[in-house]
């Protein structure tokens, strides 16, 4: 039992040290990548391809216009399930 307790004490130390080390590394890595990217590839690619699926980034005004257009063109029988950006 006391042997196990010693193990637990050690793990308290090892564990917290490791977790802090890793999250310090997260900070370090994050900052390094940001600096690297800022210096070498500061421009975002032109084509937005973030999510692509369904009406991502399409303003609701435009959406309404589209929906209205669809309604008109289909005599109200169609519906827009999704509009994708390329």
């Amino acid at each position, binding site marked *: *039992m006391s042997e*196990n*307790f010693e*193990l*637990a*004490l050690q*793990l*308290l130390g*090892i*564990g*917290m040290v*490791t*977790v*802090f*080390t*890793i*999250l*310090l*590394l*997260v*900070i370090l*890595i*994050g*900052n390094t*990548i*940001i600096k*690297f*990217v*800022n210096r070498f*590839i*500061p*421009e*975002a*690619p032109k084509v937005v*391809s*973030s*999510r*692509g*699926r369904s009406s991502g980034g399409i303003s609701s005004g435009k959406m309404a216009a589209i929906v209205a257009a669809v309604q008109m063109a289909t005599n109200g029988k169609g519906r827009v399930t999704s509009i994708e950006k*390329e």
Partner: protein
Amino acid sequence: MEILRKLYEMTAFSNLLDNPAPLFMLAVGVLLLYLGIKKQYEPLLLVPIGFGVILANLPGAGMGIVPGDFIELGDNKYMNLFEIAHEYGIMNFLYYSLIKTGLLPPIIFMGVGALTDFGPMLRNLKLSLFGAAAQLGIFTILLIAIAVGFAPNEAGSLAIIGGADGPTAIYTTIILAPHLLGPIAIAAYSYMALVPVIIPLVVRMTCSSKELKINMKEQDKLYPSKNVIKNMKAVKIAFPIVLGIVIAFFVPTSVPLLGMLLFGNLVKEIGANTLRLTDAASGPIMNAATIFLGLTVGATMTSDVFLDLKTIGIIVGGFFAFAISVFGGIFLVKGYNMFAKKKINPLIGATGLSAVPMASRVANEIALKYDTKNHVLQYCMASNISGVIGSAVAAGVLISFLG
């Protein structure tokens, strides 16, 4: 009469007379369903788990998971999956192929990754540190559980509840103490659902009103950060790759969880070119995994497993693991604020626990209660997401030493 006797034998009533304990477990199952459905405690998990508990405890139905030694043949040989299905039915087939192999938690983590946005964390990298402090509950409860008499592997499984992360808790328990899978999974998800109770409780006990009014945006204006991210997309793509490799050098045992999380995230951040994979990972794969994980984890909760003193230990210990983790995060903020000019709201420490994104929402509400203009959500998300990494790393440590 003969016909009636045969009819009776077909039913489960003789089993129930022999051992009425399953009736109690059925009540537990119904309670879990009640929590999931009515109380809306993590319904995606607690409903399948609750139903799994019910299925497992229907006498004669053969849907309960059998203990691991039933399928051991000695000499490091095991029954094959076909034999398991043949002998113990489909639930055991699913459990021993999907859960006991350790497959589903990393698969779910892949989906979690595909739904996670590291953006808030990258914009406030420094706050990640509180995701480390908020693992304190894990190692503290480990110590206490061992002191109280839990075997080290069981104590590790119990302790990881304090990571406030379901798949991590389940993965760790599969490796360290699979016989405790049911109670630990339930405790983990229940307390995650109770975050709106636990966080305010600990915050109220430890933070002053003045601290809770610290406005992060004003602090940012007073002490602006130098970092501007010019190309977030590139950063978000590089981050999971580099992070995955570096963490793996330090805690290789965390790779199955963190590697899959970061893979899911990478695929999502690439965008349109891998959208098919993102959709699959965060949609059908993750949802199917959730169903089978829930049902089979629930099905491990047969009466002989659950009706054990350890279950009480898990329930009590799990609660304190959560509370101490929240405290750990807050405590580090307080320490930091003693030395730094740019103050941090202690709520950002509290969310280091993880339980994404509910913890952040709860924290934000508390902040707004003290100052209706103090929106801390984005800041909380930084420590909140880092808490996922923190607990996966903690799990890796536990697995390395106790596995």
